[in-house]
């Protein structure tokens, strides 16, 4: 702090954290791509990438270079500005939630008192990007993917909101830091197992991951909303998807798995990040695991699952929690 004392410390803090967050998003995408391909390989009893680098470790970098080097194809009759805007719009909203995520007690850019609502608000922008991509592509398959994605996002935001509200009710705060601190005694997954399961299923659907990857259902819509995108246009969607997965899993960790809490390590205010990332990547592993196990659900079944199962259950869970809380306080 001595060197930077002539600058307002907040600006430095902002710049440093912006750089760190963006590099973390890219790093996370690299780790996830590698993990996904490697795990997919082993689930299918094949080794996955093996050629570039030891055990294919450099494969992701080579793929990234390839994507950067590729021509950005602009198909005929697309809506140019929107077609270019969509990948950016898919990428930016997933970077913003990192601002409020508490990686450990001290590692947090800004602790907003409405952090949870901020994340929920920002992450619904993702559906917008998919819609714009599908609409502007001038491709029927893309349009299908976009329409499905929007309907899916709307349906699944309701159970997520209800579940999040339940937990916020228990912790009596919307601040993510406050939520984690409320779990210092007992993780909320033990008190709210149903809420956790609902959140996880809805989270899979929110991130368009298999078995809910209807917007890019390969066997039906070839590649769905990103059919017409090539090179970096495609890879921004790709980065966005992995960052979005990370955000969804880190919220699950914050809400249910006690955030940075774990076996105490030295300098706990900072090293809590180890436990946090461990929990997040464990959840991400389960997401990958599900993807490589299940068939895809059908569109109407997806809607049924949300409206007939997840929403009633989360609503009942919410009401019971509220009643129990009132009784306990009495």
């Amino acid at each position: 702090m001595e060197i930077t004392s002539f600058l307002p410390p907040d600006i430095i803090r902002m710049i440093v954290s912006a750089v760190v967050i963006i590099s973390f998003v890219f790093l996370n995408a690299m780790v996830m791509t590698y993990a996904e391909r490697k795990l997919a390989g082993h689930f299918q009893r094949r080794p996955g990438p093996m050629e570039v680098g030891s055990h294919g470790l450099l494969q992701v970098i080579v793929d990234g270079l390839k994507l950067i080097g590729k021509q950005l194809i602009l198909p005929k009759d697309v809506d140019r500005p929107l077609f270019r805007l969509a990948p950016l719009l898919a990428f930016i909203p997933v970077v913003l939630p990192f601002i409020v995520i508490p990686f450990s007690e001290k590692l947090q850019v800004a602790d907003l008192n409405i952090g949870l609502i901020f994340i929920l608000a920002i992450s619904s922008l993702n559906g917008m990007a998919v819609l714009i991509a599908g609409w502007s592509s001038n491709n029927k398959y893309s349009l299908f993917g976009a329409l499905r994605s929007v309907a899916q996002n709307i349906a699944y935001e309701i159970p997520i909101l209800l579940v999040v509200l339940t937990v916020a009710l228990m912790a009596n705060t919307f601040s993510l830091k406050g939520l984690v601190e409320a779990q210092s005694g007992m993780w909320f997954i033990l008190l709210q197992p149903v809420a956790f399961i609902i959140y996880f299923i809805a989270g899979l659907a929110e991130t368009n991951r298999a078995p809910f990857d209807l917007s890019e259902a390969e066997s039906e819509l070839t590649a769905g909303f990103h059919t017409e995108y090539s090179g970096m246009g495609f890879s921004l969607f790709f980065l966005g998807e992995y960052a979005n997965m990370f955000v969804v899993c880190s919220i699950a960790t914050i809400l249910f798995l006690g955030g940075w809490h774990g076996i105490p390590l030295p300098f706990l205010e900072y090293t809590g990040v180890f436990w946090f990332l461990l929990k997040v990547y464990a959840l991400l592993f389960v997401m990958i695991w599900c993807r490589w196990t299940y068939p895809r659900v059908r569109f109407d079944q997806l809607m049924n699952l949300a409206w007939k199962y997840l929403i009633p259950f989360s609503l009942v869970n919410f009401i019971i929690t509220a009643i129990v809380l009132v009784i306990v306080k009495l």
Partner: protein
Amino acid sequence: MKSETNTQQNQSFTLNMGPQHPSTHGVLQVILEMDGEYVLDPQPVLGYIHRMHEKMGESRPCRKFLPNTGRMDYVCALPFNHGYVGLIERAAGIEVPPRAEYIRVITSELNRVASHLLWLGAFLLDLGAFTPIMYSFDDREQILDILEEITGSRLTYCYFRPGGVYQDISDKFIEGTRAFIKRMRSRFSIYEKLVATNIIFIKRAEGVGVISPDMARRYGVTGPLLRGSGISYDIRKQEPYSVYSDFDFDVPVGENGDSLDRYKVRVQEMEQSLRIIEQALDKLPEGPYLGKAPKKIKLPPGDSSFSVEAARGELAYYLVGDGSEIPYRLKIRVPSYSNLSVLPELGRGILLADLVTIMGSFDLVIPEIDR
């Protein structure tokens, strides 16, 4: 009122599915008239991979047509071989030694299991599950290794000859086949757990694409599709060719005729095929593997036909001879062609995802349809 119907009509649009689409399995094109996610009218377009196999059969000596038969249905080539050599033998009156018939049955059934395994993987891939295809390919690879040992090729077999087979089977083949049967029986439980009991799979397949027995009869549907609809019709039982009457096996049938039943029928058929192979290996007679057949086979005037049960249904060859080496007329009735013809009626008013399920459950091989 009129304008309202007009807007109703304008809501539908055309979607070209294929010829390059992940789930048309080759170069099938289906032109879909769509209303949102609903398919109003699917029309298959055939002929993208037409290679005039029948005409080629009418323009060359019958022995020289043999390699073509394996290339119509490359997934299940040996029954196609079998049908053609059976036809030549029937037309020209060639005797086949019993050992050759047993070898034909063993290899054909192995090929049927391989074909059904490929279908299982591809069907699940259509439904969006990526892993089952890798497991089924692992099993299928074992069959290909076994068949490569005696036929010399892995896919487009040309192994049967008029009067017998190309070469005798070895002890290594018999051991390998027995080991495979043992392995495959233990693998069924994996498919059961991963696929058949999975709630998502059941929801996707149950009640989707119901072919009623009446509809199946109208379109001439055969094979697992027909048996899935509850009609027990299998050429191996109905008019046993080769030595199929020597074996004890069941013909699995479904109840509802939906995609789930077709899945079940095919899995049970694999089990029955393993039973047939096991019995054939136990009973395998000694003797020559290739009987006496003239180098130049003269086809006597008159017509003859021969049907076999291929993996996808009834495969029939029909031939008219004129006393020369070259058939005067050759007609091949392939199962997938008739099976596909149900699609326009079946695909009316269903979701796009269901259409993919239905086409996956049909086990279409496009080069076979187009010939």
